[in-house]
């Protein structure tokens, strides 16, 4: 891709992102209407608290007596104003609930992703340099194992070993209860709480990225431009970093973008296991209470997260791809 085409490429991606978000909203709308019973009961959250007058008010507010396309329009307008509905269980707007929990989820998924990509690429590069040795087969076995292990179970087993048996790390929450910490002590406490959940969420992707890096590095290492660099006398370390690894990273980034949705979905399970106060935990609580507006809000919010993440990977791809000359 040439530099001049870059803005066009990103603009197309942005349009696609907007379309996906739009489709998610329509999906939510259809789910409310496909649910057994009255849509009003879904909006009210089937909480049992809704009396007849309140349901009538809901029907009016959402225009449930109007034709379907008018209802969709009303719904789209309210979501565009970031009005995701109201949770009658928690007596708060859904958007507020979700936004409150968002930083914790971003921290968890971000940490897990960083761990997976750093660890995966490093191990994959190491394995590629030692093809056919024990390290190589170990990585294959590990990847196969992580593919087959339920994420929430990995979390429980880590709790069992590191919290219950060894008592090294806390097993739930985001900070020690009942103590006020500041500065470095706060960061350390947070890191301790973050370690197990991030490991749980990241391990599977670490295995995936590791395999992918290994495979592409082996492929790239055989290509002519690498041989040319070697013939020119470029030091081996620089060949590896500037030529091989840079190219090998591209499929890893593409794959990371494709799997973003899975990463966010996995966060729900991990947050449930570790009582991590993010939107995954919010979804679990909403699930127990059958608080549908919150669940729909979580679906919307995670969808937007994935779309934004995809845009970032597109941008990263453009930056790392050696065929793109950075203008100026």
């Amino acid at each position, binding site marked *: 891709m040439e530099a001049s085409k870059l803005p066009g490429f990103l603009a197309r991606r942005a349009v696609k992102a907007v379309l*996906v978000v739009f*489709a*998610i909203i329509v*999906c939510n709308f259809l*789910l409310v209407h*496909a*649910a*057994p019973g009255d849509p009003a009961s*879904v909006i009210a959250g089937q909480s049992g608290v809704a009396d007849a007058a309140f349901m009538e008010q809901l029907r009016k507010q959402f225009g449930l007596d109007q034709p379907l396309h008018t209802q969709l329009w009303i719904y789209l307008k309210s979501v565009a104003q970031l009005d995701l509905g109201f949770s009658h269980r928690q007596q708060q707007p859904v958007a507020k609930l979700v936004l409150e929990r968002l930083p914790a989820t971003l921290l968890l998924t971000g940490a897990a992703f960083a761990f997976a990509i750093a660890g995966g690429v490093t191990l994959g590069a190491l394995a590629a340099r030692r093809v*056919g040795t024990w390290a190589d087969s170990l990585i294959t076995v590990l990847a*196969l*194992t992580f*593919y*087959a*292990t*339920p*994420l*929430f*179970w990995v979390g*429980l*087993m880590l*709790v*069992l070993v590191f919290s*219950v048996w060894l008592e090294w790390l806390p097993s739930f929450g985001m900070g020690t209860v009942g103590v006020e910490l500041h500065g470095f002590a706060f960061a350390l406490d947070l890191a301790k709480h973050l370690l197990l959940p991030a490991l749980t969420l990241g391990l599977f992707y670490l295995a995936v990225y590791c395999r992918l890096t290994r495979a592409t590095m*082996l492929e790239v290492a055989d290509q002519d431009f690498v041989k040319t660099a070697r013939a020119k006398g470029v030091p081996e370390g620089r060949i590896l970093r500037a030529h091989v690894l840079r190219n090998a990273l591209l499929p890893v980034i593409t794959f990371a973008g*494709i799997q973003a*949705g*899975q990463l*966010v*979905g*996995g966060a*729900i*399970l991990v947050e*449930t*296991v570790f009582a991590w106060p993010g939107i995954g935990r919010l*979804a*679990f609580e909403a*699930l*127990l209470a*059958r608080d*549908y507006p919150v*669940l*729909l809000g*979580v*679906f919307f919010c*995670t*969808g937007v*997260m*994935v*779309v934004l993440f*995809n845009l970032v990977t597109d941008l990263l791809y453009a930056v790392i791809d050696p065929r793109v000359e950075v203008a100026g």
Partner: protein
Amino acid sequence: MRDFWRRFRRNKGAVVGLLILVLVILLAATAPWLFPGSPWDMAAAPFMPPGEMDMLLGSDSLGRDVAAGIAHGARISLLVGAVSTVAALCIGVSLGAIAGYLGGVADDAVMRFTEFFQTIPSFVLAILLVAIFTPSIISVVFAIAIVSWPPVARVVRAEFLSLRSREFVQAAEVLGKTRLAIVLGDILPNALSPIIVLSSLMVASAILLESALSFLGLGDPNLMTWGFLIGAGRSVIRLAWWMSVFPGLAIFLTVLALNLVGEGLSDALNPRLARQRGGAA
């Protein structure tokens, strides 16, 4: 067929996988005889560690036999895995066939639709579907099928794209066969091997998905499942590690076996690819 088995056998991992899978199926089939009575019934004192009071794998917080739960849960896991895969195959094969055979606008539309389903957080959608349609084995199967068809559609589309311009398809067209007859009778049988390989992997991921849903309390409330067992053990993990360890091992072994069998199937059905891989490793 003989050839197929010979090539499958060459992959040692696949043979081990098949062996584990057969054992799990046997366990599921014989559960009512091995552990008569309902797995929900109290069989011993609560929180008995493995080996005590005749509880091979211990008992849970209500004195239920964990081993009985695992054996009866195997039936549900395998059933949900198989049925939801069949359902997902129906959706994926139909859409993929339409896109690949018709091409053009239909192809574009189907592929955008598929991409959408691959982008959104599918697990969140599955949760939403089961929650809204109330948890039952049918809504679980439905939700798993809805989120797992996209890879099938992609694979089938690619196969159809390459097959539809082949001579035997053109011959069938000249003979005046209907489109449906060509798709079902001529193209689909030739596209079967990647679909078979994919479906063994799909059963594996469906079992993982089902366990995750029932771990969150979204399983059928009347059925004992592996995910439910782990979910029940989560809050008492300090007291009774065996409640969550053993059902998790059951999931791990079953899914691992299915993945291994999938690799073996892939080797046996695409001998050329297998040889290439063997050469590279």
